[in-house]
Structures are given as structure tokens and as C-alpha cells.
């Protein structure tokens, strides 16, 4: 028996078959792993590493963006992370039309909070949402990619 098409793909194809507008001519190139390594990981790193408090015997280092350019860099990487959630939703990357979509949406939502925090130059906000972005990543990895 041939495997059934995923439901979300059937809906997508049905829309085209019923005379709806043609699908946008996008061409996904990277698979999920490549997307993670090329865009998600580096973007998340910039957001996460933008704020830190480091204690050593020499004192305390408060790591923060120090000027408009550095804040804009954090904002731009939060935006890349946010848009990565959309890229994850696009077939053939999407693994299903239910939990996968919700978890990708969680990445978008938390990254948008990071973007707004960077726009507002809100250090505490970046700290707080950094943990929520990590939770969004963890939840998805536990279900779909547990050993990475």
C-alpha cells in the first residue's frame, strides 16, 4: 500500500486543483538540518549571547549591546530567527500539519518578542525571552530530533 499524502499537503494540492491561485513559485533548497545550521543556530546565538552576566575573580562583566549598531544586529538576527519559523512550515520541511506547525509558530512568537525587546533596547526582556526561545527549541527537538 502506498503511503498516504500528509493531510496538510493534500489540502494544499486540493486548493490548486479547485482553481485557486497557483502556489507561489518558491524553491526550498535547504533541508531542516541545513536550515538549522545555516540560519537558525547562528541567529539564535546572536540573540542569546547579546546579554550575559559573567562573574570571575576579577569582577563582574555585564555583556550588553552598547550602541545602536549592536542593538540593530540583535534585532536583525531575531528577525531571521522569526522568519526561520515560516521557512520550517514550508513543505517539504514540515513533518506534519499539526504539532510541527505549532512548534514552528512558537519559534516565530518568541522570536518576535526578542525582536521587540531589541527594538526597545530592553536587556531584561532579551534575557527572559532567550529562555523561552530555548524552550521552543527544546520542545521541538524532543519530539522530532531528540539527539541533537
Amino acid at each position, binding site marked *: 500500500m502506498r503511503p498516504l499524502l500528509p493531510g496538510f499537503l493534500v489540502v494544499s494540492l486540493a486548493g490548486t486543483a479547485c482553481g485557486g491561485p497557483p502556489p507561489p513559485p518558491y524553491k526550498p533548497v535547504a533541508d531542516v538540518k541545513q536550515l*538549522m*545550521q545555516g540560519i*537558525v*543556530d*547562528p541567529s*539564535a*546565538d546572536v*540573540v*542569546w*549571547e547579546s*546579554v*550575559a*552576566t*559573567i*562573574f*570571575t*575573580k576579577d569582577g563582574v562583566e555585564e*555583556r550588553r549591546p552598547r550602541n545602536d549598531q549592536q542593538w540593530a544586529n540583535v534585532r536583525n538576527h531575531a528577525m531571521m530567527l522569526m522568519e526561520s519559523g515560516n521557512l520550517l512550515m514550508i513543505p517539504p520541511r514540515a513533518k506534519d500539519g499539526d504539532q510541527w506547525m505549532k512548534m514552528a509558530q512558537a519559534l516565530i512568537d518568541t522570536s518576535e518578542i526578542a525582536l521587540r525587546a531589541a527594538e526597545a533596547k530592553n536587556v531584561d526582556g532579551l*534575557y*527572559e525571552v*532567550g*529562555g*523561552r*526561545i*530555548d*524552550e521552543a*527549541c*527544546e520542545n521541538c*527537538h*524532543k519530539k522530532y*530530533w*531528540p*539527539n*541533537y
Partner: protein
Amino acid sequence: MRMRFAAFAVAAGFMLATGSAIAHHSFAAEFDANQPINLKGTVTKIEWMNPHTYFYIDVTEPNGTVVNWGLEMGSPNGLMRAGWTRNTLHVGDVVTVEGSLAKDKSHIGNARAVILAASGKRLFAASSQTETTQQQQR
């Protein structure tokens, strides 16, 4: 959340050399739950940052050699939910750490619990291993 697998060994070495923490990865990718560690040492550095907070301790081995270990905990959010503040742990504190060894057998571990020698207080370290266990118990 840098590349999670082969890169970890490189990143771990870099971390020990520079004192910088590596970023996001799952517990199972980096640590071996079947390789428990129990370390007593003096805190030399604490990094409150996402996605994982790290601290470092000097551990004196039986032969007198002092080895600096890097120990990963959860995110600052997770630690605060577990009762931590940024003043919970200080450089110079003596602690005992229960956790799991890194798969590459380097001097890196995932801390499950930290016991403060001065007060005897035992704190859970919000590790993803702990959270997984708690979720399974619910």
C-alpha cells in the same frame, strides 16, 4: 544553538581554553546519563546567559592535580524557577555537583543538582535531563 554534534567536541575544547560557553544543544546530544559525576570543588567562574548557564569549578584530584571543570545548567529562566538568583552562587564558593559527564569524556558535565557547602542547601540545576524526568513523572 551551534551545530550540535561533531562541533561539540571542538566547542568544548574551545570553551575550556577560553572560558566561553557553547550554546544550545539537547541533553542527549552532549551528555551521557549513564556516566554520573559527583564533583567537589571551588567555583572559579559563573556565566549567566542563554540558552545555558555555566559555572566552572577547580577540582583537586587524588594525585593533587587541580582540574577546572565546566558545568552546564539550565537557562536563567529555568534556574530562577528552581529558586536560584544571581546571588545564589559566588566565585570562591565550595560546592558539590551531581550530574552527568559529557559524551566526549572531557572535563565538562551537565549539573543536575548543586549542593552549597557553606549552607548544605541543595539546588536543582534546571537541566534538560531533570525537566525530562519531571515531565515523565507527571
